[in-house]
């Protein structure tokens, strides 16, 4: 290892790390691969990585840590050794600088470091205990002190709140800098009219959960403004505590604040549950309880950015304070005629509202005396809005004129039935400045699942339904950064998203490969395949293998097609005219679309010789090395010739059909064989000789019968020939025994003989054989058989075999006895001499 070279590698690696700005799976795995390929420079790379983590900006630290994590888990030693040096300082320094969400990620990572690599055989942890231990201790220490600080803080905050509430006339809850000396307070929950989309609310990571623009309350237009009974509120100094929420850095600094928040929420829920038990008919409490439960489930199921958490926290704290007050104070006899709000969806945005002050704020507001519900919503997005200072005193136009304006702007349809929800997020900028003076209808029932009431009528279609738009956006979950497809944050959705990202990654990878290879457009599928095909979500199917077209489509024909085995036709003319040494047949040449060349199907090159795969496999599988397979094969050839012809006649038929037909025929043959009354018959002549006769009518009825033999003629034929092989063993053993002096050998004897040479005997066949030969004189049988055979050409040479078969076919219709003799003769001729027991 030359240090100079290492430096280069380290320098490159460092540069690559610097490009890593976000948590990109692709880049990280790329960096891991580089690390793996350069293990000889592990020291340099580790140092580069460590120094990068130290030097880079806090936002980039997490991706860098992921690289580290990926390297140690996927590559392991020697990186583990190099990186564990100084891991404490690397980790802790970074930890101190990053924000909470990143810290959580780092905590998780640290946890995995204490465990073995997932899926690895090694049970040792990723990093040894003595490396992770100190980090953990330090973190625990930091956390404990944080909790203390937090509690301190909460206490002080509660004191402030307590003071605030004890004020003689509670001031409206407000966060705007507007002095609340307006004569008319705009009514509550106006967030629906903030048509200016808060652009700065769009951190890319959070995309998808932030467009809570739609109102959560149906607000009918045309209601008179609320009588300004509570409008002259003296500005109270104690309002300051409401206006300026306590500093929040205390919350965001502590990792455990979420836990605390969770417990706070849980406490509140208990309080409300008791409350609800006391007043089961009180709708308000029920709703608040539901909202809280929703909030709790969100807190438990989602990871929220720190700002949001602190926001919830503030509100929850206030709410709990308020609930205490409510509990203490007797409930006001007339419930406040405030709009009831319920989150229509379990997303944080709906709870927090656009400015993070939605339902919770209203919830909180409800806890306070009714007067406070009149306070304006804080306008977080002020960039496009006229300054609130000028806003508040603006005399609100009377209902009629505003309504007319809305009509003129075409925002609402001519007949806004009060029953139809007409909230609108689409007010043009000039109108949106107005805060519509309508109060929510107190009698309106809270919204549960917003019904989709659109019908295919022009009037119904014209009514804007912004609440429905959300089902195309935030309700679908967060979008994929590559293509904008959205995925739910549920377990299933997360899985899908991972698969989807993997798919992107794979496609990306394969694109470059394919670029070199050259691609072409595929033929369109034909009708039948198209009807049978199923659309698979683009990214789900690729997980099951190398579906090279990367399509979103799996055609059934593709999946059901057996893997074709073929060999390109050799260029060498001598080789091109060669035959399979086993069956002495030529190879069938065929154009193969997939390979884009002429191939020999079912062919394989083994030791410089080309075989039919099926022939070769059969020979090996059967484990029977017969010295002279010719007779049987010769007959087979006879058959094959027919089948080849049959195949040639109808080309271009679907391979799928062939395959099915093949299996069908094969099974039929098997059935036929096993149903034979005598196994001896199977041995030879009858089967092979009857076959052509039997299959003569077949072409008419089963057009594929022969094609399928072309495809896999050998296995089929082999099965024909395997029984003889097995059978002959039995017979041979039988004959041996009788030669040895046993006039009537029993099945057990035969078995013993066979087993002595390691061959398994087939009980069924054996018993058939024994029963057939029972009480017969072997010598006689053999003599008779020989005389019969003498009239037929010997089945020795390959070429003559068909003739033998054919001739024998004619005389095959003889009684069983004779056949048997014949067989015995043949067997003794052939197998006795060569492959006796193997």
């Amino acid at each position, binding site marked *: 290892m030359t240090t100079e070279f290492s430096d280069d590698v380290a320098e490159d690696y460092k540069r690559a790390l610097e490009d890593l700005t976000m948590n990109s799976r692709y880049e990280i795995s790329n960096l891991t691969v580089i690390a793996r390929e350069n293990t000889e420079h592990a020291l340099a790379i580790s140092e580069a990585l460590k120094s990068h983590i130290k030097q880079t900006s806090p936002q980039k630290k997490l991706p860098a840590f992921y690289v580290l994590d990926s390297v140690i888990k996927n590559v392991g030693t020697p990186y583990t050794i190099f990186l564990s040096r100084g891991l404490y300082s690397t980790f802790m320094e970074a930890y101190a600088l990053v924000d909470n969400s990143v810290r959580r990620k780092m905590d998780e990572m640290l946890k995995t470091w204490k465990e073995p690599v997932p899926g690895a055989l090694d049970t040792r942890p990723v990093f040894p205990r003595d490396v992770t231990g100190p980090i953990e201790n330090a973190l625990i220490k930091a956390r404990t002190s944080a909790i203390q600080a937090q509690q301190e803080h909460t206490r002080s905050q509660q004191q402030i709140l307590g003071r605030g509430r004890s004020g003689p006339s509670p001031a409206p809850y407000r966060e705007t800098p507007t002095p609340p000396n307006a004569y008319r307070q705009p009514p509550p929950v106006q967030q629906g009219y903030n048509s200016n989309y808060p652009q700065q609310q769009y951190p890319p990571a959070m995309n998808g959960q932030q467009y809570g623009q739609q109102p959560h309350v149906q607000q009918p237009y045309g209601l008179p403004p609320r009588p300004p009974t509570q409008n002259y509120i003296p500005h109270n100094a104690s309002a300051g505590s409401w206006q300026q929420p306590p500093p929040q850095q205390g919350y965001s600094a502590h990792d455990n604040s979420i836990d605390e928040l969770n417990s706070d929420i849980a406490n509140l829920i208990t309080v409300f549950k008791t409350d609800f038990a006391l007043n089961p008919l009180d709708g308000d409490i029920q709703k608040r309880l539901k909202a809280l439960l929703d909030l709790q489930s969100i807190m438990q199921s989602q990871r929220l950015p720190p700002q949001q958490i602190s926001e919830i926290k503030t509100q929850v704290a206030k709410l709990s304070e308020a609930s205490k007050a409510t509990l203490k104070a007797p409930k006001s006899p007339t419930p406040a005629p405030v709009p009831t709000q319920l989150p229509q969806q379990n997303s944080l945005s709906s709870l927090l509202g656009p400015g993070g002050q939605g339902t919770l704020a209203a919830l909180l507001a409800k806890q306070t005396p009714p007067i406070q519900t009149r306070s304006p919503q804080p306008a977080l997005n002020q960039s496009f809005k006229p300054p609130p200072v000028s806003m508040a005193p603006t005399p609100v136009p009377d209902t009629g004129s505003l309504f007319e304006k809305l009509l003129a702007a075409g925002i609402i349809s001519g007949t806004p039935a009060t029953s139809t929800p007409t909230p609108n997020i689409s007010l043009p900028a000039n109108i949106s400045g107005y805060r519509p003076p309508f109060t929510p209808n107190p009698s309106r029932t809270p919204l549960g699942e917003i019904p989709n009431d659109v019908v295919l009528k022009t009037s119904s279609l014209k009514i804007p339904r912004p609440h429905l738009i959300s089902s195309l956006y935030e309700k679908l979950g967060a979008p994929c950064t590559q293509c904008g497809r959205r995925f739910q944050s549920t377990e299933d959705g997360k899985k899908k998203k991972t698969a989807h990202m993997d798919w992107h990654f794979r496609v990306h990878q394969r694109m470059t490969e394919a670029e070199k290879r050259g691609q072409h457009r*595929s033929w369109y599928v034909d009708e039948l395949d198209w009807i049978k095909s199923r659309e698979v979500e683009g990214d789900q199917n690729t997980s099951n293998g190398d579906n*090279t077209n990367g399509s979103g489509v799996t055609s059934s024909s593709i999946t059901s097609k057996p893997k074709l085995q073929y060999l390109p036709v050799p260029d060498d003319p001598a080789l091109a005219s060669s035959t399979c040494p086993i069956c002495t047949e030529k190879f069938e040449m065929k154009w193969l679309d997939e390979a884009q060349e002429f191939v020999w199907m079912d062919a394989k090159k083994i030791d410089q010789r080309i075989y039919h795969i099926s022939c070769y496999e059969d020979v090996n599988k059967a484990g029977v090395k017969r010295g002279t397979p010719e007779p049987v094969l010769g007959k087979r050839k006879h058959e094959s010739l027919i089948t080849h012809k049959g195949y040639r006649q109808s080309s271009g038929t679907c391979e799928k059909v062939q395959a099915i037909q093949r299996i069908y025929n094969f099974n039929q043959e098997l059935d036929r064989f096993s149903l034979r009354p005598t196994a001896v018959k199977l041995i030879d002549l009858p089967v092979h000789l009857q076959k052509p006769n039997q299959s003569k009518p077949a072409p008419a009825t089963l057009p594929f019968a022969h094609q399928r033999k072309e495809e896999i003629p050998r296995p089929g034929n082999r099965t024909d020939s395997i029984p003889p092989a097995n059978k002959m063993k039995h017979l041979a053993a039988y004959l041996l025994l009788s030669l040895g002096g046993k006039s009537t050998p029993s099945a057990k004897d035969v078995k013993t003989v066979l087993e002595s040479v390691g061959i398994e005997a087939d009980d069924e066949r054996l018993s058939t054989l024994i029963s057939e030969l029972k009480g017969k004189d072997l010598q006689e049988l053999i003599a008779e058989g020989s005389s019969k055979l003498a009239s037929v050409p010997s089945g020795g040479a390959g070429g003559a075999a068909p003739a033998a078969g054919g001739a024998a076919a004619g005389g095959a219709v003889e009684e069983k006895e004779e056949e048997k003799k014949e067989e015995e003769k043949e067997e003794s001729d052939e197998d006795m001499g060569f492959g006796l027991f193997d």
Partner: protein
Amino acid sequence: MVGFVETRQSRSKVNRSTNKAGPEQVIMNIPGLGQAAPAATFSAPTIQAAIAVHDLQANSEWRFEVAYGQSIEVKIISGTAEIFGTELAVNHTYTFRGTKSSIFTWHGCRIEVNGPCEEYMAEETPMITYVNTHFALEKLRDDAIQNGGEGPRVLVVGPNNAGKTSLVKLLTAYATRMGRQPMVINTDSREALLSIPGTLTATPFASIIDVEQGWGSSPTSGPSPVPVKLPLCYYYGLASPEDNTKLYKPILTRLALAAASRLADDPVIRGTGMIIDTPGVISQGKGGYDLISHIVSEFSVNTILVLGSERLHSEMQRRFSAYKTRSGEAITLVKLDKSGGCVDRDDTFMQQMQEAAIREYFFGDPKRTLSPHTQQVNFDDATIYKIHEANAMLSSFLPGGEEDSQQVGLYENVEPSSMMLHCLLAVMYASTRDSQETVRDASVMGFVYVAEVDEKKRRLKILAPLNTRITDRPMIWGSWPETTVSLI
């Protein structure tokens, strides 16, 4: 409104020119403030030069036209945006070539545009109606799934350039976003869907539509950055359905049959239903209305969306108010407004679009190059059928009283000639021995392009997407798409 739009347009052009002068200066258009202070500039050294940034308010649309041969890059910086219903990813660069399109936003967004294009903002769009149409269809789909029935079969009719295809695309995209799988049927031979003009197709959509490439791509041998779609194609080969209704109708029937079989087989698609795009010309006259009736009955259409034409709407009302589909459903008829963004596409543009589609079929798009194969075919080996030209033309040549065109076959078996040069032939999934009806009803396997005709040697040089023997298949030679300039 128009005035406003034009100022914007001109200003953004000005912006770009100033940008070239001062590379570090980027001009932002801030709605509301832009007009009062047109030169609101700030320096942002990190952003590259010659990039225009637009802020779109909620519910507005940025319409743009990119000429053929030019390209622009568009990036959504923040907010949400969609092109014909397909949501765009934030911070992802999209490249557009030769297109007339628009980016719509429901929530407002900021986009960054790099490249020359004609553009303007529009605040009045019929999007609310369109999206509500989608939700109305969603409700029908929910009902269909609950009852195990078929989702709505939606027919979109309207004159040329009314935005039919855009609406079909929008409804398709919304449906796929909500996890549905609509079957999209294109009966417009002038403009192809995932194929070459002249074809009628049926395509199930389960994945996101490629916003940069029209509808996306049919399968290729390689991977695709946007999932490919699998169309079933039939070849009509003429520009207008009225050119040869004797050919058009049976092909439609066959298409409907295949689509219905797929629906019967595939529960997801059945629940979603079909969305059928039509050629504009059938919405413009008596003969066309008959074709609409034909489509309605063949596809069991139960929802008709009429785009932009009062007259057509009343005509449809007259024809279908008492009509019942095979399963006894009444037809819902709705008139929708035409979008102001619809532009007339002149013949030149259509021609270019056609050429682009053909080129894309053989050579792929800029994102991935395809390599077609050339091969030689002997005149004697090729079986080529020429589509008979318009019925009316033909009958006028026949002696009076003998105008019965049934005596004339559907196609004419022709020998290759130099007339075929630079033409496209559709290779059919049929055998050369099949009857003309069978060939007509067969689906398309692919297309080949006649690159050379050597009449002396009696040989054709053809360009095929892949190197397969095609002479065992009949080929159909249509007059549409029209002869283009040499591809190679």
